[in-house]
């Protein structure tokens, strides 16, 4: 996608590898899982690990 998403647009499928401190292991985030479970999602971007958030 060349142009960034705008408000009101449906977000295309997202899949990212994760580290989950609760599970104490690696996993995957899939937006489709959120839709299937009817859950709200907050995506919180930050520049880099080992810096302030």
């Amino acid at each position, binding site marked *: 996608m060349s142009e*960034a998403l705008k408000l009101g647009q449906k977000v295309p499928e997202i899949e990212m590898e994760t580290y989950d401190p609760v599970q104490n292991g690696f996993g995957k*985030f899939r937006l489709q899982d959120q839709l299937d479970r009817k859950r709200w*999602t907050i995506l*919180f971007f930050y520049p880099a690990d080992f810096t302030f958030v």
Partner: protein
Amino acid sequence: MGCDIVTVSTDTKFVHLAWQRSEKELAQVRFPMAADPTGTVSRMFGVYDEKTGLALRGTFILNPEGVLLNSEVNFYNLGRNIEELLRKFKANLYLAKKTSEVCPSKWKEEGDKTLTPSPEMVGKVHEALAG
């Protein structure tokens, strides 16, 4: 809280693990930390900085249908106010139930003054907020 928070940076999941386990400030972290090393997702949301390969401080709220409802982006040197994020999230939940109402800037939680736009309110927003 009724939603799932996922943090995203261009670091790998291995670095996320190392950071979370070494930084005491992150001992209580309860959300998954996602890896976007290619910048694909960061670009999708317009927060990828091509010069540095890093993601700017962007926060995005998606409803259960996957529609993007709010965005806030700060440059590297400004942190975010979590109270304002919570306010926006609560407002989204409320507005999903009350589709004819709108939440003004001072709205903080359910029970606070909302507005219901109508022909009568045109030019009378001041009176409607006071009423």
